[in-house]
């Protein structure tokens, strides 16, 4: 099986769907000839033509809004927003139009589309390019939010997203684009939306993470096992909305301890929702408070202090250690 980066896996998922379904269109800023600023759409215009894969003027709201019209007409648009932070310029179209047209039309119009956007920190992007946006969109009801953490998942989840009748925001962590390769089948396959993955089995404590924090959590788990001999379970949420509550609750009910890791700032984030779910459905299993490992409550940091501010494997390990104390 070929070993692919996440960039290649996503490119391949797009190619498969462009091939299979003439209603699929890929568009956005620089996705055509340039193949995207991260080369995610590299070669797709050459292969499928400029009417399937094309550049747009620079206007995020119109990019998303035009996808609404296309989806209403029956196409399956896959608009790209060059960096997820720039979805803020299309926030209204995403939150009030894309996510609600199915509802507002009494269920008569489907917004089958995938909004793709790179996000996340740790790669020294210019200012305002690295925001973690998933917790905002978790609040946007009617939208699904998916964040893959491996090349294999990225391809399978993206294909599921494109085939989903509901709109999906597909967030690709920039740090994962090329950080490692994985065996990825060349053919069509899906990974289900709404299902978390247990990426490391363990019995003493549960670490809930997603995106680039999954790798950091796995490292932390390793450290803790080495240091304390404790058995750490790591859950990769994969879908942020709707959350796989059962996976979280089952694991915490088993381990009785949990740490939730999120790259973005603390207040009102995904970790808070995970804790609320644990509180509601597994409180009596808890031996200790669930700790959050997050960035502090401030804007995305100046990049020179990125490494200090973003959660590191060490910080996750420290939180695990604290939570393991009797």
């Amino acid at each position, binding site marked *: 099986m070929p070993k692919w980066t996440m960039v290649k896996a996503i490119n391949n998922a797009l190619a498969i769907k462009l091939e299979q379904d003439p209603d699929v*269109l890929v568009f956005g800023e620089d996705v055509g000839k340039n193949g995207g600023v991260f080369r995610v759409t590299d070669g797709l215009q050459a292969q499928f033509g400029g*009417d399937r894969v094309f550049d*747009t*003027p620079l*206007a995020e*709201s*119109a990019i*998303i*809004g*035009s*996808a*609404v*019209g*296309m*989806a*209403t*007409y*029956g*196409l399956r*648009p896959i608009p790209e927003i060059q960096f997820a932070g720039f979805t803020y310029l299309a926030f*209204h*179209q995403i939150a*009030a*139009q894309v996510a609600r*047209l*199915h*509802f*507002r*039309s*009494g*269920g*008569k*119009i*489907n917004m089958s589309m995938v909004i793709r956007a790179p996000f996340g920190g740790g790669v020294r992007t210019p200012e305002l390019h690295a925001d973690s946006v998933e917790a905002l969109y978790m609040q946007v*009801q*009617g939208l*699904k939010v998916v964040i893959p953490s491996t090349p294999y998942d990225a391809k399978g989840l993206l294909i599921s997203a494109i085939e*989903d*009748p*509901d709109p999906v925001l597909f967030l690709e962590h920039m740090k994962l684009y090329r950080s490692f390769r994985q065996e990825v089948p060349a053919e069509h396959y899906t990974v289900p939306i*709404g299902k978390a993955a247990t990426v490391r089995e363990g019995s003493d404590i549960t670490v809930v993470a997603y995106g680039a924090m999954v790798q950091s959590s796995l490292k932390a788990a390793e450290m803790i096992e080495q240091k304390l001999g404790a058995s750490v379970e790591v859950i990769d949420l994969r879908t942020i909305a*709707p*959350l796989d*509550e*059962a996976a979280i609750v089952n694991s915490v009910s088993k381990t009785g301890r949990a740490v939730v890791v999120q790259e973005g700032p603390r207040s009102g984030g995904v970790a808070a929702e995970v804790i609320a779910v644990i509180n509601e459905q597994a409180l009596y299993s808890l031996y200790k408070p669930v700790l959050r490992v997050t960035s502090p409550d401030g804007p995305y940091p100046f990049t020179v202090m990125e490494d200090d501010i973003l959660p590191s494997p060490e910080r996750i390990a420290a939180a695990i250690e604290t939570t393991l104390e009797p």
Partner: protein
Amino acid sequence: MTFSLPTHVTQVISPEGKLVSDPPELPPEQLVEFYRWMVLGRVFSNRMVALQRQGRMGTFAPLNGQEAASVGLAAPMMDDDWLVGSYREAISFFMRGIPITAIMEQWAGYIPISYSPATNVMPIQVVLASQMPHAVGMAMAMQYKKKASAVVAVIGDGATSEGDFNESLNFAGAFKAPLVTVVQNNGWAISVPREKQTAAEYIAHRGPAFGMPGYVVDGNDVFAVFKTMETCLERARAGEGPSLIEVITYRMGAHTTADDPTKYRPPEELAEWEKKDPITRYRIYLRTLGLLNEEKEAGIEEEVRQELQIAVERYESERPAQRAEKYFDLVYNDTPPQLARQRDELLQFLNRER
């Protein structure tokens, strides 16, 4: 290619009901049909305001004064075309096949059970200019599917100040999308007069700025709107690109039933515009042609009132049935487990309380 800035207002029928340029070539029945739609619009609007006063309807935006524009923009559309509008073009929606009850449902805050996308009309849009990129995207989809059809987008004068309006015109120009955008310039955006909305003399000047022709049309003149629409729709269907039409009309009523225009608008202005009433003007013209007389007019009005009465009855008879049960199926195509649990808990609670 550079288009020049429009400098005059196209008119076919003067406020006095006289022809000032060539009328469109249309069969007499259709001319009367236009009149009927205008009357239906006005009666509908007045009835909605009355229902709202009686607590039987939500907030409503009256359309009085804009009947000619709504008829003129919808009339030359073909079946495959799509209409993407905002909230004051009920007549255009009706002409496309949207039932009266569907519009009532939407203003009443009710699931639009009688709405159907098979009419090629998107639901009413209340967020200013948000429909514009939808319209462009749909036009791009038609282009991709190689259809010789077009999208008609409708928007108010005030909403043209929103980013979405301008991004969309620019998209339409850049992609040469088959889109005809109609700005219903009714002089006001709630309390903000047109002069304060933009410094340009005409909103239609935006056309050439985004690489498409711009037209200014007397919006109280159904023929002027119709003819300009025909030109632009042909252009769009022929793959020659988008156009922008500004129709100059007037909002004769309040902005919505929640608004009191006496706070900000001089009564003389309304009086001035009453002289230019689109229905009166067209009625005089049709009488000159012998297509209308007092009796025929009364017949049309009666017919229209009955149609409305049936719609009101249908709307009201179906309304009480909608409670929380219906809510949960509309969020996603497949209800996720937590939402299903929330549904069960809520319904259990409500059933206990009821």
